[in-house]
């Protein structure tokens, strides 16, 4: 294998930094969900990369669990965004002022 571990880790760091930029700058709720997805994916990439280079299989198993949990998280997050959109008629998170029903 020609690629070293550090290349994958650097790509993962770049993706993490982009995701944190998106989370801190964007006020659009759906775009913030994009940023969360990028952060989760950089973590998954790290898991699989370290599992390849150690090598063992637990890293891949943990990455599979992480992908499944992220799917559940996105489903709930999108439902929350839809509820908030119906309530405030906007997806700007600065408009989501109260958590009261």
């Amino acid at each position, binding site marked *: 294998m020609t690629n070293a571990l550090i290349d994958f880790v650097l790509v993962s760091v770049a993706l993490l930094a982009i995701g944190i930029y998106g989370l801190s700058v964007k006020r659009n709720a759906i775009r913030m969900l994009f940023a969360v997805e990028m952060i989760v994916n950089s973590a*998954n990439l790290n898991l699989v990369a370290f599992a390849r280079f150690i090598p063992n299989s637990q890293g*891949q198993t943990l990455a*599979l669990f992480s992908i499944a949990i992220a799917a*559940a998280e996105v489903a709930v997050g999108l439902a929350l965004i839809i509820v908030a959109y119906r309530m405030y008629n906007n997806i*700007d998170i600065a408009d989501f002022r109260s958590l009261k029903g």
Partner: protein
Amino acid sequence: MVDSIFLALSVLTIGSAIVALEIRSLIYGSIGLMLTLSGIAGFFLLLDAPFVAMFQLSVYVGSIAVLILFTVMLVRRELIFNKIEDSRRRYAGIGLMIIMMLGIGTIIIGSGLKSMETDTASVDYKKIGEDFLTYYSPALIVMALILASAVIGALALARREDVTSDQRTD
């Protein structure tokens, strides 16, 4: 040294991640997110983890990205093309991103990870299946319950309470 496939994949992944956050239309943004997730799946293939790569493709690209695309289409048209951010925050965010990249990057380059290469064969994906059904089977059951409850919770959250059954036209 890295090969050309790795370079192309990293350009695709990082570039479409930036596009997903910065392009004006949310629909093109979700397509950019789809490309980012496919790029990550390509990295998994490079790392000799075909099972995780197929899982990533089917779960992320197949379901999550499509779910996001449909949610975007539910939102009003002028909100899709509306970029809401203030420019000072944006410059601070770009600064934070560059500081994080350079800081964590220098730490990682300076650490001992650089010498870590492997010549051993990769783990057979049959081992993952055996792990799932033997050692990790309680965790697998718990994860199935979590997924089911999350989906039911999402359905219950997104249900419209103002529409009763006698108002429906069908």
